[in-house]
């Protein structure tokens, strides 16, 4: 359908990922024995490196080329690669959970988006927050500004109909994912079934009218009758228009950081969230698209510089979520573990580093579920999950 969805998808999913990483890296230790290795400096560095990779000019230009959406597998790989641009390492279980959270958060935003065009405002809420994460680094702020300029240039002139097509394409990507997120459940934004709550109250979108009025006209165009009907909800007057400029009031809270309130430590171990009842793009057969996608990813990552040592020495292992605590109650078929992936030959790219890294990630996927938690060297399990995100 739309060929312009990828930049928005990456900016928004990446933004949500950064919100979670920022929050996780601030969380204090639970154990006295461990020293807090994530100082404020380190946290800022990790985020800055990831943001710099995500907003690198080459990467963004590739994303902005007209193209269809990718599979969940490819998006997960892309986010993993971005996260690993820093010295931080996430194990497979953490990455799985992170991906689910990030996708469900974005699904909520796309679903509740008042007008299709407001997708751009949601994106700008993310880029505004990202800019704030790196405000100590003028060079990175410049990168973010440049990308935002490109987004404004590309998207603000699209019609509402084109935006709806983008939104419908994104909804197809997000279809059938019903992972429960405890933050959403707690705030009554999501039902226990995993479906989001859609209210029939509140302001109508900008440029819409509150439902309830019928106007009848005569043949000369004069209004001759006016009647009301029960609208069945309780709507209020239209939202004000948000700003589509570089800076400004975006008028919507969708896309802002919902993790920014420090969670209360209640000692509860992470509860279960249902695994997606259906992994939409996961099949037993190797996806013939996979080779194509990984080649493209190699090209995309070619411009992304890894920082420091990628192979493990000196890299800090991070376990975002306590391993083994996710109950596989439903044991749905098509889960990531044990999914056979056909052998894919990675093409050599101009950046040897990127292709090696991709090959390593691809290898990781093939071994998923069998690889035990790696005993970390210098970086122990630094963070424990305080509450279920």
């Amino acid at each position: 359908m739309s060929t312009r969805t990828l930049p928005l998808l990456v900016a928004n999913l990446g933004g949500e990922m950064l919100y979670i990483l920022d929050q996780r890296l601030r969380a204090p230790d639970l154990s006295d024995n461990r020293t807090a290795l994530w100082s404020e400096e380190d946290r800022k560095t990790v985020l800055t490196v990831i943001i710099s990779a995500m907003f690198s000019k080459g990467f963004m230009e590739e994303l902005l080329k007209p193209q269809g959406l990718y599979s969940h597998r490819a998006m997960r790989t892309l986010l993993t690669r971005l996260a690993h641009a820093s010295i931080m390492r996430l194990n497979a279980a953490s990455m799985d959970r992170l991906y689910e959270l990030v996708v469900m958060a974005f699904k909520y935003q796309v679903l509740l988006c008042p007008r299709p065009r407001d997708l751009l405002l949601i994106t700008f809420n993310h880029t505004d927050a990202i800019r704030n994460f790196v405000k100590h680094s003028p060079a990175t702020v410049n990168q973010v500004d440049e990308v935002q300029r490109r987004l404004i240039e590309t998207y603000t002139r699209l019609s509402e109909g084109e935006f709806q097509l983008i939104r419908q394409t994104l909804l197809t990507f997000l279809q059938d994912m019903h992972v429960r997120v405890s933050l959403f459940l707690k705030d009554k934004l999501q039902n226990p079934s995993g479906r989001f709550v859609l209210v029939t109250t509140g302001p109508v979108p900008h440029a819409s009218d509150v439902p309830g009025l019928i106007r009848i006209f005569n043949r000369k165009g004069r209004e001759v009758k006016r009647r009301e009907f029960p609208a069945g909800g309780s709507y209020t007057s239209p939202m004000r228009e948000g700003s589509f400029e570089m800076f400004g009031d975006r008028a919507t809270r969708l896309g802002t950081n919902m993790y920014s309130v420090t969670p209360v430590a209640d000692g509860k171990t992470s509860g279960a969230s249902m695994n997606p009842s259906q992994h939409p793009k996961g099949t037993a057969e190797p996806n013939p698209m996979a080779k194509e996608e990984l080649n493209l990813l190699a090209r995309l990552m070619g411009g992304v510089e890894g920082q420091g040592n990628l192979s493990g020495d000196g890299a800090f292992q991070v376990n975002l979520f306590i391993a083994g605590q996710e109950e596989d109650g439903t044991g749905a078929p098509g889960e990531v573990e044990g999914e056979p992936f056909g052998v894919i030959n990675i093409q050599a790219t101009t950046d040897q580093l990127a292709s090696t890294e991709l090959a390593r990630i691809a290898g990781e996927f093939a071994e998923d579920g069998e690889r035990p938690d790696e005993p970390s060297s210098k970086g122990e399990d630094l963070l424990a999950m305080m509450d279920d995100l």
Partner: protein
Amino acid sequence: MYHKEKSIQLKSSASALYNNLSVLRIGPRSLTHFTVVHANVVNMVSASWDGLNYSHRQLQSKEGNVATSSSLILQAAWCVLPARELLVLTSQKGIQMYESDGSIMVYWHALDSPETPTAQAVFARGIAAVQEKFVCVGVSSGSLLVFDVPSKGSNITLSEMLEEHKEPLTDLGSECSGSQEFIADLVSADDSGLLCVWKSGDDFQLLNKIPGFEVTCSSVKLWKGIVAAGYGTGQIRLYEAITGILHAEINAHARWIYSLDIAPFTGLLLSAAEDSLVRVWHLTLTPETNSVEIEHMYNECVTDTQICGAKFCDGDGYAFAVTGYDLSEIIRYTQA
């Protein structure tokens, strides 16, 4: 006015697409067919009227080149012509036409897709059967394709390409009253809200153009010379097709309208939107004064669902069916 019946389960959930439900009633066999689009698949369910038998079938979109991404389907609808019924699928790659039970594909028309994707998306959307022998389909370029359909067999030909629209077509509505007294046969709608009114024939004739206000018209119906159009702002407007005179404007929904339908024998109008609401209205036409009245009859809230398809199941509007994004069922309602 209506109460909920037992839902029909689907093999996969409905995608967020305009007019994502089509219904075909087969009287002689006491069956109703339903189709709902899920990404690149069409789910077809046939339900017996006694509610005891359901059979399922899935149709895939035709791929162009296997190496490229799968072709998403934008719409599936039955076209009822005097001699035959066809099931038409419109996708990113082209237009597929099947015999009405989905068993055999009788025709394939490929769209001009560029080798590398362009910023302007390419797809077909908007399907209608017109008069004796035409099936019309809209394209993202703004073209309206007219296919000539013989009474049987696969010798379907592209008869005309009408180029009045400049924006992607969204929906087509053909005159559904069953009467021959109305001049206009077809109305076409696009992303800018422009409505074009046509008379069919070996050469289609443009009768009128009703401008939009840069607000997408996502669903359009034509009944007794009246155009009922649903818009992205949640408004419904009723126009006189030939003259473009606005009869009525209704602030009907709080979100984007995804589907309109009319029950031709009674003038009941069904509207459904992303705001979770389905509304039933009644249209009355007074021929002496050429005036149209619309009255609100009923609301149904489908909780936590962005509705993407709503259709009456019969010509009187005795029953209607609804689909929603991410929902794997067709919800049905009948008059109490």
